[in-house]
């Protein structure tokens, strides 16, 4: 393959350089019916799972068909999305915050053909390319991170567990039988690029072995003070190490103090901590970001560890099913998972879900831990 120049001249990087232009203006991308009725919408209705209508003051309507997408997406797939949007939606579409794709049409008569087209398309392996759903009191698409596809610090994969989870929960992507919407997120390490800390159900990759120290290279690849400062529990200190007769500057890890966050590894590649047996998944539940009825909440750890059972994480998907079913059966209409758990009490949550309570689930990290202990005689046997 021959190198094709864009016109960029490496000897004169500033020549014809365009910078700081930002993203394209959003108005260039609005479908006509959106442009015309922006800010003048009266109400909306979910006609069936995955299909919404929004009605404007002008009487105009926009019908939205929402489909799930794996956020890891090839250009072949995106071109197919474009082909569909060209065929049905005048060349417009949008993505949602939760990796869904929305196809919009301005007339009810166009909806059925669009849905039929979307549902007919399957990958060679047999899965749907564009499953319709993800609305209302159901389980929509999972917000997630890179995992083993492209990240240097993960404790689990992202795309694989998400695929396994959504296969398990697929009927609830396409129905609305939950008491309220259930938001699931996956973060493949404590960095939580997927911001799983406020989800109804959070799947979180976690390491359980302290970092190894690559003494021979540490001082060459890392700034020792920066790596030491990166540790939130002060588990690292400088150490001179004798390696075959030469003394090198390195780091000592106080293993008892390590909480396996991996922040040191982010600062210093000579402190790797990933490990097949050590790494796995933590499940957290009960978070929310909406201010509806109750204030936003953080997710709480309810399963301290599940091993990485590749390729389909069956123990994890079984627990997801268990939590979802227990919630669906027991919660009141409009009650989010965290609101339900708080109403019945967390001790009841463990009773009803059958999840095992262990010392790992009692907070012992700094001041906020104290506020999570029971400071009343009001509890349930």
């Amino acid at each position: 393959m021959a190198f094709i120049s864009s016109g960029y001249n490496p000897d004169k990087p500033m020549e014809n350089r365009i910078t700081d232009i930002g993203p394209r203006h959003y108005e260039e991308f609005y479908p006509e019916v959106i442009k015309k009725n922006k800010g003048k919408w009266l109400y909306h209705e979910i006609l069936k799972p995955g299909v919404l209508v929004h009605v404007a003051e002008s009487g105009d309507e926009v019908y939205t068909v929402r489909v799930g997408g794996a956020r890891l997406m090839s250009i072949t797939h995106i071109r197919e999305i474009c082909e569909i949007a060209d065929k049905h939606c005048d060349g417009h579409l949008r993505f949602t915050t939760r990796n869904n794709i929305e196809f919009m049409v301005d007339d009810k008569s166009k909806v059925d053909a669009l849905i039929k087209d979307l549902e007919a398309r399957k990958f060679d392996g047999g899965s749907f390319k564009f499953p319709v759903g993800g609305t209302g009191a159901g389980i929509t698409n999972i917000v997630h991170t890179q995992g083993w596809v492209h990240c240097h610090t993960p404790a689990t994969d992202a795309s694989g567990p998400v695929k396994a989870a959504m296969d398990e929960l697929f009927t609830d992507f396409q129905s609305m039988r939950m008491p309220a919407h259930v938001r699931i997120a996956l973060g493949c390490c404590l960095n939580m690029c997927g911001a799983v800390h406020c989800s109804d159900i959070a799947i979180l990759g976690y390491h359980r072995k302290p970092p190894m120290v690559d003494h021979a290279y540490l001082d060459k690849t890392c700034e020792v003070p920066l790596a030491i400062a990166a540790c939130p529990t002060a588990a690292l200190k400088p150490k001179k190490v004798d390696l075959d007769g030469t003394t090198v500057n390195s780091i000592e890890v106080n293993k008892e103090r390590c909480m396996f966050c991996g922040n040191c590894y982010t600062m210093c590649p000579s402190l790797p901590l990933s490990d097949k047996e050590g790494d796995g998944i933590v499940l957290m539940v009960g978070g929310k970001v909406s201010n509806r009825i109750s204030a936003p909440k953080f997710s709480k750890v309810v399963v301290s560890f599940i091993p990485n059972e590749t390729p389909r994480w069956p123990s994890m998907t079984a627990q997801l099913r268990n939590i979802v079913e227990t919630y669906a059966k027991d919660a009141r209409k409009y009650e989010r998972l965290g609101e339900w758990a708080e109403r019945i009490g967390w001790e009841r949550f463990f009773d009803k879900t059958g999840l095992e309570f262990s010392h790992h689930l009692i907070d012992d990290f700094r001041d906020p831990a104290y506020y999570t202990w029971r400071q009343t005689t009001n509890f349930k046997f």
Partner: protein
Amino acid sequence: MAKHKTPLLDQLESGPWPSFVSDLKQEAAARAKNEKNVEYQISQDVVEDLLGVLELSYKDGTTHWKHGGIVGVFGYGGGVIGRYCDQPGLFPGVAHFHTIRVAQPAGKFYTTEYLKQLCDLWDLRGSGLTNMHGSTGDIILLGTTTPQIEEFFFELTHNMNQDLGGSGSNLRTPADCIGQARCEFACYDTQDLCHTLTNDYQDELHRPAFPYKFKFKFDGCPNCCVASIARSDMSFIGTWKDDIRIDQDAVAGYVKGEFKPNAGAHSGRDWGAFDIQKEVIALCPTECMKYENGKLEIDNKECTRCMHCINVMPRALKPGKETGLSILVGAKAPILDGAQMGSLLVPFVEVNKENGYEEIKEVVEAIWDWWMEEGKNRERLGELMKRQGFQKMLEATNIKPVAQHVQEPRTNPYIFWKEEEVEGGWERDVNEFRKNHLR
């Protein structure tokens, strides 16, 4: 014939949910076939090698990606993340596999013309793999080599009038909810505020000058669909000051069962007939509503605008007309000191497009001045707030303390009084004191 055997990944092709493995395979096949005769600028079998290295991770339970090196485009300190494989001999196609972040348009609406152009460019100069979108909101282009980065950027800016997104200790690419474009709840134009601030702060977005990352997110109402309250250092949430607008006829329609409650969101189960007392009045967190003699009344002064009643009866209830936004600050994920939710800093500010959002930018810049002055290396705004206290932030932003700022007043009396607040100041003469208090 596939370059690497992937027996584990193959098991992720079955089941109804779209399989990323099938998609990767179709891209690998498309590149092998190359029907358009593209002169691929990176390995033609890059996707095969990605499948290979991912299969290896499925086998040995760990990642095979190394830390990024310093890669990027001239003059920017963000937008490209270096990525190298730790098994380059086995998977040469992905030995160098850098990520490019492209700033997404506000609202994530697209034309197919734009997407197809981006696909063509990424076909030529990258792996053909993307994330639509990354967690922060950018279009993520996964995998290219160092020599392609400037070439890609040149074509992106010249041919597509499109810039990179943020990474590193920069302003990260701001993100917004769908807002007024297609939502009746939105209290301000999230797209315009997001786009305007993104463009006004291009320097902060491209050139790292901050202690650590900084995120803006824009939610049109307290439903917080873009999770700003949990995920952004500065969260802009639409709200209103006046009365919820009520259409009593439509309320009656809901009561009579003519309209589905919550816009039909619960229609997958028989929850029984809609009961306004149970489903709206009794669930109102401030108990500020009543429904008597066929009339809904709201004591708006007591309402905290949680959106529940509006969500349940969108045809009957609307946010007020005196709209604006609340600013909450300091949210972040747990690294390092535990997760933090946004804390209310500005209860209400008008959203004033005409003056370029001057009042909002004033708060943004005051916060940045304080954080850049006081923040330690890799200290998020929320962590600085915890370390120095809420009062210091109020001083830095010149915002008057109000009871709305707290959930409850402090439970300890350890007030850091300032000398000027105490009558007579702190300088005293111990000898004068001793005249009345013998040693």
